[in-house]
């Protein structure tokens, strides 16, 4: 019985103990729940406070910005000082300036290309005309000329003209440095020095490139007395005389001039060099009529040319030993101020006197003692007139007269009417007819030729003072 009672007590005690444990868990749970609720409430209240403060802060910021904006717009102009305004103005100017550079290409040189093709028909062959071009039909790529120019430094500019030309015999391109020279820009005393390879200043058209001539071919007298373009390797000094009237004086020295070859001597003396000079002036006859004139001289005291020229008798040879050429040029221009792009008239004439010394070998056999030096005087000239009647069209007439430099009895006349159609400043067609008449002494035959010249320019192309 005791056992039963003990078991019953034990049985009752266990549930009581279990009930006590259950109460504690519940209490703990309630405490935790309370704490959680307290935490969430505090968090909610703080968030509400934060939101409220943030809103206040935003409102205040907006108010301040509005006030600042109002103050700025209503500020008087005096708030910007003159210095600030100048500074800002300078900055704007510098931006505008950066868009308006005057010099082409800045550090890159100005580059241009000129192309010139001559389509022609000659009634006689080259033996009869003395030309290096064939008779009959001919297409001649006379030049593909690359022009490059830029300032070297504050004291000089440099330029080069590289010309590709079809070889008369093979037709292959023949590259030649026509000019590559340095030209000073800041010498004192109105002086300008040019050095390198360039076209020396002699006469009016000798230093003009082919495509800039007013007609298709270079005048005969320049071809023979100078040798075409007045190319030289040398130095040239130009002086603008400091007076109110235009007067320009040029002097130069070089190792050759035109087609003249250098001395074959191993040691060249001073007299082996070529010397040239020119004095030119200008007159405003009226506001529309202009007159330019000049005298030029070329002298090489000791040419020592190896090349000999066989005379028409087929035996006697001439070798140039001293070159003396003098020239007088005149150019009369009608340039109406009001519409000079549409109207114009030019009359240009150049007379050259050749007074060379030749070594004459009567029998053509060298070093047999019969050679002698002979002075040979000759005269040649060209004269042309061009009339321009619209921006696109002009026409004119060229007259050539030439006494052969080695024999003044050998005379050539040429008559060349021409018409030019300038589609634009960079694209030009010219049609020219030339009748050449030679007397019996020349050994050449009269010739009729028609030329069609097509010249074009791409890229930079400036008009220098010489090409005006």
């Amino acid at each position, binding site marked *: 019985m005791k056992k039963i009672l003990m078991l019953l007590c034990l049985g009752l005690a266990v549930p009581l103990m279990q009930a006590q444990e259950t109460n504690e868990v519940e209490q703990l749970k309630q405490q935790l729940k309370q704490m959680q609720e307290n935490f969430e409430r505090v968090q909610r209240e703080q968030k509400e406070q934060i939101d409220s403060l943030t809103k206040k802060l935003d409102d205040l910021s907006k108010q301040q910005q509005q006030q600042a904006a109002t103050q700025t717009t209503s500020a008087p102009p005096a708030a910007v000082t003159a210095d600030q305004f100048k500074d800002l103005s300078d900055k704007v100017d510098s931006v505008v300036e950066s*868009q*308006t550079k*005057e*010099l082409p290409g800045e550090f890159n040189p100005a580059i241009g290309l000129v192309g010139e093709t001559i389509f022609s028909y000659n009634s006689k062959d080259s033996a009869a005309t003395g030309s290096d071009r064939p008779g009959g039909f001919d297409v001649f790529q006379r030049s593909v000329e690359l022009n490059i120019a830029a300032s070297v430094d504050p004291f000089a500019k440099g330029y080069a003209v590289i010309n590709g030309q079809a070889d008369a015999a093979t037709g292959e391109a023949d590259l030649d440095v026509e000019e590559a020279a340095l030209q000073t820009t800041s010498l004192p005393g109105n002086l300008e020095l040019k050095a390198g390879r360039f076209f020396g200043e002699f006469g009016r058209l000798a230093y003009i490139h082919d495509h800039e001539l007013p007609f298709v071919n270079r005048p005969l007298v320049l071809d023979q007395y100078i040798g075409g373009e007045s190319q030289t390797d040398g130095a040239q000094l130009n002086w*603008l005389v400091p007076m109110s009237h235009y007067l320009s004086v040029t002097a130069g020295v070089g190792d050759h001039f035109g087609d003249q070859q250098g001395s074959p001597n191993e040691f060249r003396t001073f007299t082996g060099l070529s010397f040239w000079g020119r004095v030119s002036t200008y007159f405003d006859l009226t506001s529309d009529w*202009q007159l330019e004139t000049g005298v030029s001289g070329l002298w090489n005291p000791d040419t020592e040319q190896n090349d000999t020229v066989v005379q028409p008798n087929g035996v006697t040879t001439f070798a140039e030993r001293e070159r003396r050429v003098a020239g007088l040029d005149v150019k009369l221009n009608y340039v109406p101020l009001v519409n000079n792009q549409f109207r114009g008239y030019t009359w240009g004439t150049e007379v050259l006197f050749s007074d060379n010394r030749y070594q004459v070998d009567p029998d053509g056999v060298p070093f047999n003692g019969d050679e002698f030096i002979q002075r040979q005087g000759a005269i040649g000239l060209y004269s042309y007139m061009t009339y321009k009647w619209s921006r696109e069209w002009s026409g004119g007439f060229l007259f050539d007269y030439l006494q052969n430099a080695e024999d003044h009895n050998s005379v050539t006349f040429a008559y060349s009417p021409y018409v030019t159609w300038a589609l634009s400043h960079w694209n030009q067609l010219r049609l020219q007819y030339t009748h050449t008449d030679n007397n019996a002494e020349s050994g050449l035959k009269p010739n009729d030729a028609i030329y069609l010249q097509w010249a074009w320019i791409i890229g930079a192309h400036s008009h220098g003072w010489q090409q005006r």
Partner: protein
Amino acid sequence: MKLKLFHLLALAATGLAVLTVLPAQAAKVRVVTTLTDLADITRNIGGDHVDVFSLATGVEDTHGVPMKPSFVPKMNQADMLALVGFGCEHAFLPALLEASKNPRIQYGKPGYIDCSKGVVPRDVPKSTDHSEGDVHPYGNPHYMLDPVLAKTAAKNICEGLITVAPQYADEFTRNRDAYLAKLDAKIAEWTEVMKPLQGLKFVSYHEHWPYFAARFGLVYFGTIELKPGVDPTPRHITELIASMKAEHVPIVVREPQFPEKVPALIAEQTGAKLVKLPIMPGGVPGTKTYIEMMDYIIHTMVAAAPK
């Protein structure tokens, strides 16, 4: 003997006086300007202290002033060169500058005054390819036909004069302010007179008028030239006439240096009125000064506009 001595002294005194006068004359600032508008403004600002020579007389094309060698000594002795800029003088000024051998007026030197400084250019080409004609790479250079932009040129000229002759700075500044005030008054007058013409369409021979049109609210309809520096083709003239008729363009402007034949034909075909307008002072009679020229342009346009 005494008489001879007196004569000698008188002669010496006269010589001395002449020598004294000569430096005073030489002290003038010698200014060369490319065009006559700049010359007029320079005279207004420089007053008695400047001796101004303009390469153009007023009737020339602004891009085609003849390169006369007689300009060279003038430029050789100049203290200052004022030019329009934006490449306006590209066809003649570089060669003249080279020939002048005057370091004081070369590009970048204090005596080289580019009056376009501060002018925002119009019509700056996207390409300088010659398929677009003789384009100006830096933008249209004819800003002097806008009198407000002419004020910028006046300021640049004044700055240039002060740089080369700072001793006259106060006088130059006073003269400039007086000239600008005068110009401002005229601008107000011109603006008022031109108000009824707002939206008026017109064509011209060369692209001279974009700044003028923008200033006075006109519509610059086109040019007779095919492209700048390129004469019109028959097709271009036909198309221009057709579009002018369709858009009722009432005015054809011919600048004095261009031939009248084609503008007259276009005016006749379209029923538009042909007017001859100068592009710089001296271009037509009675326009010796910049203000006279602008007066002439404004009143001619007003008279030609449909009522």
